Each structure stands twice: as structure tokens, then as C-alpha cells.
């Protein structure tokens, strides 16, 4: 599918959704459930938004600590916040 063209990156980020991967994960976790046709796309969208928010959070954490690199403790703290937020 389309490649991230907006921001030039050394590594091209693919916008393709790993549909098979998502379906497989869901099937493994909940074998008794079935996933509808395009639901995995929305799941992918959900993941994208989650990761986006997580990245923002981690970035602010790192900047707060005046760190030029995102370290795992930043990520951990950000994840705690985000998982709490996206409790559903």
C-alpha cells in the first residue's frame, strides 16, 4: 500500500495494516469469537492511535527529563498512563 510520503524518512514506514497478524492474534486469544470483515482494520486504527499517543507521552516524558533519547523508563511511565487512559 502507500508508503509514508509525508515525512521523508530513511526508513519508509509502510501504512499497510498487518491484517493477518491481527486476525491471528485475536484468534489465539479468543478462539470462540469471530472477527468481522473489516474489523481488523479498525483494530489497526486503534493500535495506531494508541501508539501515537504513547509516543507523544514518551516524548514529553523524555523532554521533561531533558533527555535526548527515549529511554525505557520513559516508555514505561508513558505506558502506565496510556493503559490507564485506554481502559475502555
Amino acid at each position, binding site marked *: 500500500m502507500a508508503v509514508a510520503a509525508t515525512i521523508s524518512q530513511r526508513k519508509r514506514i509502510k*501504512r499497510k495494516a498487518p491484517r493477518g497478524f491481527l486476525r491471528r492474534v485475536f484468534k489465539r486469544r479468543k478462539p470462540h469469537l469471530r472477527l*468481522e470483515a*473489516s474489523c481488523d*482494520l479498525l483494530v489497526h486504527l486503534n*493500535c495506531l492511535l494508541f501508539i501515537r499517543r504513547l509516543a507523544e507521552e514518551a516524548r514529553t516524558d523524555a523532554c521533561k527529563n531533558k533527555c535526548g*533519547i*527515549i529511554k525505557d523508563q520513559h516508555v514505561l511511565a508513558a505506558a502506565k498512563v496510556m493503559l490507564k487512559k485506554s481502559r475502555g
Partner: protein
Amino acid sequence: MADSDISDNEPTTRTLLRRVLDTEAPRTPRRRQSTRAGVQRTPLGTPFSMRLRSQTKTTAGRQPHRARSIGRLAHIQTRGQLKEQTPRTLLENILLTAPESSMVMPESVVKPVPAPQVVQFSRRESSPGSLELQLPELNASTTLAPGRLTSGRRKKRLRLSEFQQGVDQGLPLSQGPVTEPPGNTGASSLSSSLNLTFATPLLPQSVQRPGLARRPPTRRAVDVGIFLQDLQDTSVATALPGDRTPVATLPTDTVLEDTQPFSQPLIGRSPSVHHSLPYPSLSAERTVSRRTRSSGPGLQNNSPGKPAQFLAGKAEEVDALAMGFPNTSSSTSGEDGLEPLLGGVGEEVEERMEESMSLSEVKEAAGAQASARAEEPEAHTEVAEAEGSWGAIEEKEPEGSSGDKDTEGRTARPELASSTPEFPRARQLEFLEPAPPTSTAVLSSEPLEPLSARLPTRVQTAGPRRRQDPYKMGLSHYAKLFSFYAKMPMEKKALEMVEKCLDKYFQRLCDDLDVFAAHAGRKTVRLEDLELLMRRQGLVTDRVSLHVLVEQHLPLEYRQLLIPCAFSGNTVFPAQ
């Protein structure tokens, strides 16, 4: 120029051009032609058309032409090269400088003085007056083969002649014209014109000038026999990733059989391991014959550096294996024993390589079956120690040390099992797999495992490993997205942390969806469940709807699948 110039009965290009020049009203007052009595007014188009159609023929008027041309040349010289570039001047120059030899009477016409380059003539027609290129001495060049057939041919031949000159003089093409003409554009155009000409080589000329062959073929012909053998071998192996493309049959072939086991180094990739294991599926003799045959060319071809430089450490084991395998007929047991070891070693390499190894392993697996078992015990030990050295070597940057290792690896390895060479050609370098065959499970799992090698668990834990790998891969896909969104450098540990968070997130997601579907009394998760989830997460609000999010973050193809849209024929897709 008097009209007597055009005394030829046959319309040659030269005469036509002359006619044009003479008859056309000069554009500038400086035109020489203006002084002449250019009475005849022939339309400009017809001479061109005639020229295109006509064939140059020898005419009696050649001599007077030449004399006149010389005089003309002198005249032009007096005027210097400063006259502005117009089609007329260019044509004139062509007439003056172009050799007057004809197809029928090939002769060396001497153009005594450097004249403006005629090369640009063809291009000039398209873009008149754009070039100001001066030919180098065309004295010798005009002795081109048969005279011009047409004006177009003339131009091309001139360019070729110019090139030939350059070739004879040993000058690089680009330099030849550059030195002469003052204008860079001319030089570039000349070179480009030369390139153009060679893009469409005239057949007779190319035949006559074998020296114009620019490049010797770099590839060797594929050895059909070896190729077929490899096909057979690969057919034995079941799961073969098909992304292997034989880069160069012969080099790899020779690499495997040679003292230089590695074919050309991978670009940017650490050297590929080339199969040390001979592919004795068919017969030892065959491998031996292949080795001997390919050793010669292989040496030359693979001189640039075998890819598996860091495999120098494995030279010893490779040697042992090479000796062992081809000599023995078939040893299935040995292959099992060697598999894990070699597989492990290969796996390490595969971290860097990629699936290329799987192919090689497959081949080796197939080949190992035929290999003898007797050598295995020794090979085992050697492999073991080689592994250690290999692991150490692997630490180093393959590319960096490749050069050194290459040479020593090359010398150290006599002919590694080049038997399975053709097939693993894949990424140019197969890495040297001391252990020949790997189980198919290993093979299939190997491509999925970009992470550190698991030497011992390769064969045994095929099942659970399989489950792990694609899952990890999917998570790493999202982790990459994370680093993209973060726009900041990240540590590796941070990425692993992200993957763990994603794992937890997926768990929660599935649980929530389960709950929602059960709440709605369904066993299938639907879009409304997803929307409810996003609403509860705060992503979808009264102001921001799901469709907006879809439009913002998903590519168009997915959006078409998700958002119902009306199409022609009173249809809505996706149907609701």
C-alpha cells in the same frame, strides 16, 4: 559558391545541402552566401526530403567539390569560429567538413582543418543553433567505412568516427570532445550524442568495428547442468522461500567449489555465506568436476572479495566438511548431526543475512543426505570449534573486516561444498554453511527469525518458536511505528518495552471486544463494538467521529472498505 557547384546530376546529400545553402536567402548580412549569386530558390523542405531519400553516390563532381570545399574551409577559417550558430552555418560546416567519400567509392577524404563538429548536425536539426561543438581533427576519422548512405547516416558515422578517433587515441570519450570545443555544452552534447549513437548502433558499422564493443560481458553463461541439478536438489527440500534469486550462477558456483567459497560480496549486507557444503546429491564426481571447472573462472570472478569474510574462521571446518562431504556418498546420519551445529552457525550468520540462508540450508540439507557420514564426527568437532570462532568473528562488522577475511578465507577454504552453489546464489552470497542441511522446520522458521540465533533450539523447538516469531514480527512492526511517531532517537530497550506494552494492550483489546460482543449477545465482533471501544477510550467523541479518524489515519484503500460510500447504479459499498 557558385551554382556550378551543383553540377552533379545525381542528388547527393552534399549537393542538396549545397543547393540549400546557396539558394536560401541568407539571414544575416554576414552570410557568405549573400555575396554569391544564389539565384535559385528551392524550397527548403524539398532538399531535406530529397536528402533523406537520396543515396549518396559518387559523382564526378567530387573533385571540384573538394577543391571548392578546401577553399571554403579556408574562407571559413578566416572568418574564425565566431560566426553565430545558425542552421545555415551548421549545414555549411557539415558540407565542408564532412568527408566526401561515398558509399560506392570509399575513400579517405581529408578534411584538413578542424571544422565545426558535424556531430551536432542531427541534433541541430531538432534544436538549431544550440551547439557549438568543434570536432577534433577528423583527418583519420574520415576514413570511415563506406560512404554515407544518408545524411542521417553521415551524422552518425561522423560521431562514430570521432569516437573511433578517441578510441584510437586512447582518450576517454568525454575528454575527446571536451578538449577541442570551447563550449561545455558542446562537449556534453557530443558525449551524449556519442552515447546516443551507440544506443542505436548501426549494424554494418558495428560489425566492422569490433573495437567499439564497449563492455565485455560480465556474466558467465549459466551452467545448465548445474542449474538442473540444483533444481532437483531444491525440489527435494520442501519449504523453500522463493525470494532467493541466483545472482550469478557461475560465480557462486565457482565460489562454492573454489578456494574462494564466497561470491561477490553483498552490497551493504554482510557477506553471504556460501555453501561450504558440497552438494553431493548427484555424485561426488560431479562436484569435483564442477569444482575443477569452476575453480578457474571462479578465481577470477570472485576476486573482488568473497562475501563471507567473517567466515574466515570457519575455513577449517569448511575444509574438513568440504573434504568429507564430497568424498563420501551419502550420509544421512551425518547430516543430522551436523545440522544443528551448522544450523546454529548458519543461524548466526542469518541474523545478518536473511533468508538467503534458508535456501542454502535447504540445499545443504538435500545435499547432506548424500554426504558421507564418516567425516561427520570430525566435521562435528571442527564445526564446533569453527562455531566458536565464527561467533567471535561475527561480532565484528562483517563489512569492515570482510576485505581481510576474504583473502584469508579464500585461501583457507579450498572448495567448500560448492556443490549446492547455484541455488543458494540468492543474495549473491550465501553464507558459508558448514552444516549442510537443516531441517525444513528450521528453514521455515529461519526466515522469520531475524533475532539472535538459537543454536541448540533450532531443530527441537520448531513449533513454539513459530508461534513466537510472527507475533514478534507484528509487534516490531508497531514498534517501528512508535519510533516513527516519537521522532526522537530511542534505545533498543525502549523498543522492547514498547513491544511489551503493545502485548498488554492487545490483551486488553481482545478482552474488551469480547465483553462488548457478549453484551450485545453476539459471537462475532462487529464494527459497532470497535466504535464503542474507541468511544470509551476517548478517541471518538461527539466532535470527532469514527469516520474522521478513519480518514485521518488510514490509507485510502482501507477507508474505502470502512466508510460506506455511494456508487453509481444506486449501490453503496460496503453494503450495510
